[in-house]
């Protein structure tokens, strides 16, 4: 059985506006259910999304979505894509449900199916009661949900969300993130989230691509990272008797752990495959040592992001 092509395959992709190189030699293949695009303002996140959508023509290289070339098969690709832009985008003077129905019809749905889907997505995003209101009267949070509704109305297999939580208050933000996670977990659509909010990306993405000045600063698989973090431990000890600490250290080294002593009461350890935290506790009991605190190492997305920004040119 042939392997499914990656969701996004960047092949030396470059975009230049006049003299300004906005994206430069982007390479990589990404297959996660939810891919995060991170980067400071002006890093090229939105330009990358717009290029993948066919709004801008690549000046170098190309990119493929689901194995289809964005330039040669743009029209076919856009049939499978849903897009939620960063800024307000709607048609004035029509009701919400009519707006979403129009967008679904433009995506190819027959009028009856489009109307049915429009009603369904309005209830799905939680705007069911407001669907007959003129879209101009919607609040900022409602407009964000409206943009999501029009993006999913035609049931796309790839969803581009550009700063989906922009301008939302905390409850609305949580609601938006919950919807994104639900769509991700349904397995019906892959999601690309562009954001400068690390927390949002961390909460709903599995893979993260950090861009800086139009280049890929780093790529990180958050699931792998979280799994790896579970092997790094930091322990605070309280020894009941003299020498118990060094005995405990020797015992867990005997289990195959790499150990570093921070001070007399604090050590760091890396668990080898097959060794679990319960083995550490067992050794502590044997050596008559009390573990006052045991923490997994927490490499947050913020650490990864800051590291990527530093690594790019040595300064933030």
């Amino acid at each position, binding site marked *: 059985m042939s392997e499914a092509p990656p969701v996004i395959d960047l092949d030396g992709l470059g975009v230049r506006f006049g003299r300004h190189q906005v994206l430069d030699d982007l390479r990589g293949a990404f297959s996660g259910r939810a891919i995060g695009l991170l980067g400071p303002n002006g890093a090229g996140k939105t330009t990358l999304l*717009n290029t993948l959508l066919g709004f801008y023509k690549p000046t170098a290289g190309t990119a493929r979505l689901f194995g289809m070339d964005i330039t040669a098969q743009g029209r076919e690709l856009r*049939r499978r894509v849903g897009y939620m832009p960063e800024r307000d985008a709607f048609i004035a003077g029509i009701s919400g449900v009519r707006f979403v129905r129009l967008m679904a019809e*433009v995506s*190819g749905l027959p009028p009856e199916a489009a109307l049915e*889907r429009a009603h369904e997505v309005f209830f799905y995003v939680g705007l069911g009661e407001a669907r007959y209101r003129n879209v101009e009267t919607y609040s900022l949070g409602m407009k964000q949900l409206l943009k999501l509704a029009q993006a999913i109305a035609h049931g796309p297999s790839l969803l581009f969300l550009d700063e989906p939580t922009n301008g939302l208050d905390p409850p609305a933000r949580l609601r938006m993130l919950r919807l994104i996670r639900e769509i991700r977990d349904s397995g019906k659509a892959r999601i690309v989230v562009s954001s400068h909010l690390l927390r949002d990306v961390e909460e709903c993405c599995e893979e993260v691509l950090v861009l800086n000045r139009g280049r890929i600063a780093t790529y990180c698989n958050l699931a792998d990272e979280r799994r790896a973090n579970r092997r790094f431990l930091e322990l605070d000890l309280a020894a009941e008797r003299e020498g118990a600490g060094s005995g405990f250290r020797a015992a867990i080294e005997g289990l195959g752990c790499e150990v570093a002593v921070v001070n007399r009461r604090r050590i760091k350890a890396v668990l080898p495959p097959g060794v679990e935290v319960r083995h550490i506790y067992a050794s502590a009991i044997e050596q008559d040592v009390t573990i006052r605190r045991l923490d997994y190492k927490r490499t947050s997305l913020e650490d990864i992001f800051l590291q990527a920004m530093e690594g790019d040119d040595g300064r933030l």
Partner: protein
Amino acid sequence: MAVYDHGYKGYDGPLMPARSRFLVISRYGLRDVFASRLFLAFFAFCFAWPLVLLGAMYLRYNAEALTLINLDSADLLEFVQVNTWFFQNLFLRVQLNLAFIVVLVVGPSLVSADLRNRAMPLYLSRPLTRTDYVLGKLVVLGVLVSAITWAPGLLLFAIQASLGGREWLLEHWRIAPSMVVVSVVWLLCMSLPMLAIAAWVKWKPWARIVFMGAILTGTAFGSFYKEFYDSWLGSLVVAFDVTDALSASVFGTQGTVQMPEAAAWLAAAALASLSAALLYRRVRAFEVVK
């Protein structure tokens, strides 16, 4: 994803053909236009003059009806000569003036609502090209203008042909295609500039003012140039002169404007091309600042 089932579901039902996708935009555009009762009333009024002409044509061939309304048939025969002049000036010229109002009222509302609120990325992120979008909007104006120009014109022509007989038809056959050609050329020369201006100005009242301003300025400048230099070149920027010259060229009649046919065609082509280029420049997902 039924309304009672709040889980996300994809769509795997049938899809409409991609080639006719632009008609979705036209359909929605037409529905929006006719949602206004005022416009609907005006549009109905646009059929009044063709009905008057139809009545005149009927009376001309119905002596009994003439006696009922105490009219002498000789007077009417003298007054209503159903010929090229009748269709070109008495019918089409009047209807094109009404069509001008239709374009002025409807044109800006077609694109400015989309551009003002940045809806273009939403359209163009779907399987729809910029050409589809423009075509969809042009079809709205095309349907409206056609409905009050060449379509009733052809109906009048057909009725007159049936009343006037084979001889009349053979003598005046050119009228039918001429009405269609003049209407379509006029539609492109008026609709494209109107849409282009609306796309740049984005605010409906301003778009109408700018469009009227452009026509009036062109007319004033052209008339001044013609008077001052005694040259037809001024007519190149007078929309009504160009329309007259084109109409005369297509109907094969003597125009009221002293202007070479080729110049009129070139001016019309240049206006439509320039407008299309300006419109295309604006109808895009995002503005690229180089």
